């Protein structure tokens, strides 16, 4: 039976398991939108195409399924670029569909024509320009395979208007992705043996758990590995949730704003086991002095990551969970009490984690808010953060015990990510409690998506940490630019009135004592509540490793407050 290209598109999406798409219509994608009405698809109308890509991204990160965004040609497509780059850096499987001008018009600078496959080439895993109806099915099926296999990532399909309109025979089976010839890789038994020898002989090993732990669904295997060998675990920002924060071997987050004992443990280690992470500069600090005494074993699914930033002794390329399962039976149990006690000792001495000791002087601190949010939600919410100080405080003070409960833009550091990504997360997991934690700066970048929330009648709660500054930039200016606050003081709208204007509830909180009641009432409220927390303006995220500095050269909290392990 003949179908139009637009019908083939939706037929393929539905058969790939898509139920929800995030998009914005326009001229070149109109045939696809018209056909959409005949398929069981929930379309979420966004307010800006960037939002569509972040929603698809949040959907994918919350569920592990492929997220789908759709937009028209030209500006619709270029507006997607930031969201695509965000997904690329954090290895998130999304498929973006864009309309394109008619194939005869391509190259003529037609109305709303942009070479979007050219534009997105460096920020997609792969992309397609489809000019014929019969090529749509194979492109969509292959796109889903590419987006979700190996190291996941974004794929874009640009479909000309005439390809959507014209008709052809369609056969699902024939549209199956043809395998791309690849030499089969096999694990060298010698590498495995060397890795095992390094693991079994290490006195002071540390596991570096990255996003790959979550993407590979390897949380349980990593735990089993760590428990068996008694190896402490440090997490990257995107690794948070991969190992329960409450697990006794879990040290917490490493890197620029990681706690002192975590970074010190890495610097003192004699073996680093990098599991599904890529030694980002925010994690290593100065590469020349990074973990100077440590041998390194790197397990990653992407061979191009092995040895990219940090030379390694053994690189094992493959799925993390599978690789660990084959190592596990030969890993010698336990016997690292001295090392673990040493790290615990450092933890006790660290002058940090002062929630209980922050002065209760009437000021509200972001750390209070995050800590109280963690307590009030029992640590079980999906928290979607923006980028900046609040993001680091969230990582430090909200203790995630489950994978896929912290959704944050790590690699690209995309401000404006939180609100749309939270919409995607809520659509993927409607039963889950979803919180946005955003700063006043990033929130204003994508706040029109409040209208999307209202239109879709979603129940997402939003905590805006309002300090009146672009806080993280202000912090850098404080440390490195003599407090010359160029362009960081920030005027915000009245967020309560703003929420009301969108038909949502809102409240402003200025005192510590109001925090938990406000969170509780937002949780009780059916529908979205915007909570504006007016916090201390010039608060600073500690500890901090200045960009490019040695990982152990942390700027510590200035107050002499002593942390005890039980605060952590």
């Amino acid at each position, binding site marked *: 039976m003949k179908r139009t290209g637009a019908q083939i598109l939706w037929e393929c999406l539905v058969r790939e398991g898509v139920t929800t798409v995030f998009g914005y219509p326009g001229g070149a994608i109109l045939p696809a939108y018209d056909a959409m009405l005949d398929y069981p698809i929930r379309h979420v109308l966004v307010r800006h195409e960037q939002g569509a890509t972040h929603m698809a991204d949040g959907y994918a990160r919350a569920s592990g399924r492929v997220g789908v965004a759709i937009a028209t040609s030209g500006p619709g497509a270029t507006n997607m670029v930031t969201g695509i780059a965000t997904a690329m850096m954090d290895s998130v499987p999304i498929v973006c569909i864009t309309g394109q001008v008619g194939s005869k018009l391509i190259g003529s600078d037609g109305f709303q024509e942009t070479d979007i496959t050219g534009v997105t080439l460096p920020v997609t895993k792969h992309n397609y320009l489809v000019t014929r109806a019969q090529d749509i099915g194979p492109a969509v099926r292959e796109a889903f395979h590419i987006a979700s296999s190996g190291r996941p990532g974004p794929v874009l399909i640009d479909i000309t208007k005439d390809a959507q309109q014209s008709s052809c025979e369609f056969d699902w089976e024939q549209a199956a992705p043809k395998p*791309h010839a*690849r030499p089969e890789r096999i694990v060298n038994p*010698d590498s495995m043996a060397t890795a095992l020898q390094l693991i079994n002989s290490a006195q002071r090993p540390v596991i570096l758990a990255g996003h790959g732990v979550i993407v590979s669904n390897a949380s349980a295997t990593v735990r089993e590995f760590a428990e068996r060998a008694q190896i402490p675990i440090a997490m990257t920002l995107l690794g948070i949730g991969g190992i329960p924060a409450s697990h006794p071997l879990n040290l917490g987050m490493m890197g620029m704003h990681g706690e002192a004992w975590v970074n010190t443990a890495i610097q003192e280690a004699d073996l680093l086991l990098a599991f599904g992470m890529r030694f980002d500069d925010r994690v290593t600090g100065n590469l020349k002095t990074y973990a100077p005494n440590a041998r390194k074993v790197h397990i990653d699914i992407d061979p191009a990551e092995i040895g990219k930033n940090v030379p390694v002794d053994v*690189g094992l390329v*493959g799925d993390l969970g599978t690789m660990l399962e084959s190592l596990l039976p030969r890993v010698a149990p336990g016997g690292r009490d001295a090392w673990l006690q040493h790290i615990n000792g450092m933890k006790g001495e660290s002058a940090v984690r002062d929630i209980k000791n922050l002065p209760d002087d009437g000021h509200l601190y972001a750390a209070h808010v995050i800590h109280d949010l963690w307590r009030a939600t029992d640590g079980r919410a999906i928290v979607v953060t923006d980028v900046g100080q609040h993001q680091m405080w969230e990582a430090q003070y909200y203790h995630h015990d489950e994978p896929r409960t912290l959704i944050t833009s790590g690699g690209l550091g995309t401000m404006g990510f939180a609100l749309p990504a939270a919409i995607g997360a809520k659509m993927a997991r409607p039963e889950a409690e979803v919180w946005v934690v955003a700063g006043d700066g990033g929130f204003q970048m994508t706040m029109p998506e409040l209208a999307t929330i209202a239109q879709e009648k979603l129940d997402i709660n939003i905590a805006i940490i309002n300090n009146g500054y672009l806080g993280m930039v202000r912090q850098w200016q404080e440390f490195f630019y003599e407090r010359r606050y160029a362009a960081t003081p920030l005027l915000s709208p009245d967020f309560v009135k703003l929420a009301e204007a969108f038909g949502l509830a809102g409240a402003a909180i200025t005192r510590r004592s109001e925090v938990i009641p406000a969170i509780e009432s937002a949780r009780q409220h059916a529908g979205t509540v915007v909570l504006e927390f007016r916090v201390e303006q010039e608060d600073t995220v500690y500890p901090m490793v200045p960009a490019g500095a040695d990982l152990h050269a942390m700027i510590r909290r200035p107050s002499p407050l002593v942390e005890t392990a039980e605060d952590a």
Partner: protein
Amino acid sequence: MKPHTFVVTVEDLPGVLNRISSLFRRRNYNIDSLTVGHTERPGVSRMTFVVLTDTPGAERFAANLYKLVNVISVADITNTPAVYRDLAMIKVAAPQERRPEIVHLVEVFRARIVDLSPESLTIEITGGEDKIDGLLDVLRPYGVLEMARTGRLAMTRAARANASAPAPGPVADTHDPQVSYSV
């Protein structure tokens, strides 16, 4: 750091060269030469790259190429016995009285004269880069008016057909014995 020679086969589709050159630009690879052409297989193009890098860099170069969906095979043949060829066309100023000297040089280098004009000769030469550079050196005093070179083509010395491309089935690990792969 030394020149590494890669033989890469790719699907012959629009935009593939762009994907590859975009990868080089983005990852800041230093490409010495690049040739593209058809192969014995329809729908498959063959590229030869010369890249200045170290051994780990060469391995990541290959790994990054494999991330491109349209790349079929990547072989670093730097340490494999192989035949290298470059082709150049050199237009050299050749007044009547100096022609015999130039023709003699062409014979010595086993090059060919492929075009003549009253004022110039066009010489075609194939061979390794050194040989072509040598001819260029001796022609330069006469006045090189124009030159075009293809860049390096390479083929490994082996009985097996298409030996430059990895054989089907499991392959040996990369040069670094401590890096191994499974998919």
